[in-house]
């Protein structure tokens, strides 16, 4: 390959160099970035990565940006947490959480893809960028466009959560609410991108954007001590992330950074929008579009563009896909927060609930090393928990009132007596 990376048609193999284009002119299939792994072989080593920044840009030599690119935003490099308490509840002995609820700068994994997309928007000379979004992408594009001094137009479904709307507007982006669902918004963006000379991160910049998702896979492997897990559980909206984590693992194997291993991939969806899990369960890659109806709005894509690839990825790896109800999603958000101190948005509730079910059904064995990918922060979808907790009545600032309150709370005075602090042997009241 003459260049370090270039666009290539997924279906017919035609190459295009580097240009803002996402559809093959010959067979109208999606284009993908192909990195020259041979060229990266000398630079993409464990040692070189360890010397890199504490961000996703430590993997820069396998991302589609020029060698001398200086990133403006340190996204990624989020914690990989052991999850023993959640594990005990759901019968898992070796469970990890990849916590992109704290991905910077806007608290979702979309910060990764946008970093790569906007780098390329600048390289291609766009002064205006945009996206269709279910919320997290909107926040990420708005924030990073502000940082790079680019104008941003963000198109969202009109019923989006208020927090995600505010978290887009605050960065000065032009937010356009569309009277329709995400699939309507996405279709309109395809038309806009043909009419205006703008860089749409998930339309004409999509091949570059999608490569940013690989960094989730790179980080999981590095944080596990350069080894691959047995299983990965990934939420699915458009279906891109799950395929890119697999691509990342394959690239690491190819470059000798990890031992070869067949990782099983498990996809998670909400039952109210489950076109990919429905296809996986039916044993097909043909995606039947659905009209979404779920509180997990960040996953509410009824016609997922990467659906066929996601279904294939799952089937080939020996994994499975599941979908869960809105009630289960809310319970799982609470369970993850109560057990591991991680507050995730509805998509993370989907992942957690599906993970629990996969253990319950025996599709994942208790001792297998399993990573569940949490992709967004609970502060963005607090409305999902509306009514879950009563507003407590205020009490007077007096110790006696507090004790009376505790007694009323659980009526167990004996425990409370024992809980009192003993100082110098005296019971201090």
């Amino acid at each position, binding site marked *: 390959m003459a260049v370090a990376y270039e666009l290539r048609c997924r279906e017919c193999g035609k190459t295009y160099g580097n240009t803002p284009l996402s*559809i093959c002119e010959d067979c*109208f*299939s999606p284009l993908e970035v192909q990195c020259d792994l041979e060229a990266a072989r000398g630079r993409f080593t464990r040692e070189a990565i360890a010397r890199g920044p504490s961000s996703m840009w430590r993997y820069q030599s396998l991302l589609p940006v020029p060698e001398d690119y200086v990133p403006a935003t340190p996204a990624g490099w989020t914690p990989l947490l052991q999850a023993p308490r959640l594990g005990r509840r759901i019968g898992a002995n070796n469970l990890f959480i990849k916590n992109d609820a704290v991905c910077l700068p806007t608290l979702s994994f979309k910060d990764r893809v946008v970093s790569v997309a906007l780098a390329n928007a600048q390289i291609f000379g766009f002064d205006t960028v945009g996206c269709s979004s279910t919320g997290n992408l909107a926040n990420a594009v708005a924030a990073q466009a502000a940082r790079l001094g680019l104008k941003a137009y963000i198109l969202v479904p009109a019923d989006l959560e208020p927090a995600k709307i505010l978290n887009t507007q605050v960065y000065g982006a032009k937010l356009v609410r569309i009277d329709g669902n995400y699939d309507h918004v*996405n279709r309109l963006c395809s*038309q806009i991108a043909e009419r205006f000379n703008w860089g749409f991160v998930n339309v004409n910049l999509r091949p570059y954007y999608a490569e940013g998702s690989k960094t989730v896979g790179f980080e999981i492997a590095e944080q596990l001590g350069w080894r691959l897990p047995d299983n990965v559980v990934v939420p699915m909206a458009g279906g891109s992330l799950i395929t890119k984590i*697999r691509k990342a693992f394959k*690239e690491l194997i190819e470059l000798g950074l990890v031992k070869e291993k067949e990782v099983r991939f498990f996809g998670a969806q909400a039952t109210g929008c489950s076109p990919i899990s429905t296809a996986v369960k039916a044993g097909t890659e043909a995606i039947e579009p659905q009209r979404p109806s779920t509180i997990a709005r960040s996953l509410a894509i009824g016609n997922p563009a990467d659906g*066929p690839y996601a279904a294939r990825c799952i089937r080939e790896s020996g994994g499975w896909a599941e979908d869960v109800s809105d009630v289960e999603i809310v319970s799982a958000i609470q369970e993850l927060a109560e057990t591991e101190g991680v507050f995730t948005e509805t998509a993370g509730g989907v992942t957690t609930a599906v993970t629990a079910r996969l253990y319950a059904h025996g599709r994942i064995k208790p001792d297998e090393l399993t990573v569940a990918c949490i992709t967004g922060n609970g502060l963005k979808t607090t409305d999902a928990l509306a009514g879950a907790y009563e507003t407590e009545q205020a009490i007077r600032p007096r110790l006696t009132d507090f004790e009376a309150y505790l007694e009323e709370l659980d009526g167990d005075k004996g425990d409370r007596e024992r809980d009192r602090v003993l100082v110098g042997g005296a019971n201090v009241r």
Partner: protein
Amino acid sequence: MSVKVVLPNAFQKHTDGAREIESKAHNLPELIVDIETTFPALKPHLRDEQGQVRRFINFYVNDEDIRFLGNEKYAFQDGDEVLVIPSIAGGSCSCCSYCGQEDCVCY
């Protein structure tokens, strides 16, 4: 009776730059044949080796995905606007990013 058909930029290389046509097709199968007859150069690109319309090409009628309207059974109404839009995916899976083969033998 006729419908307005809006074609994507990706088609223009094979349509001499035409972006729109009027069609008298009554349903989707007739429309595809009509498009192919109007633009013979487009035909080999529109269908795969088995003669099926490529799976990444979507059809919308008045903003709605035609698959929600009955797909091939949907009878076009006079004045319908039909949008042809390819899916925009960026996925990768079975194809090896190193050798580019579906059945990779690199490792």
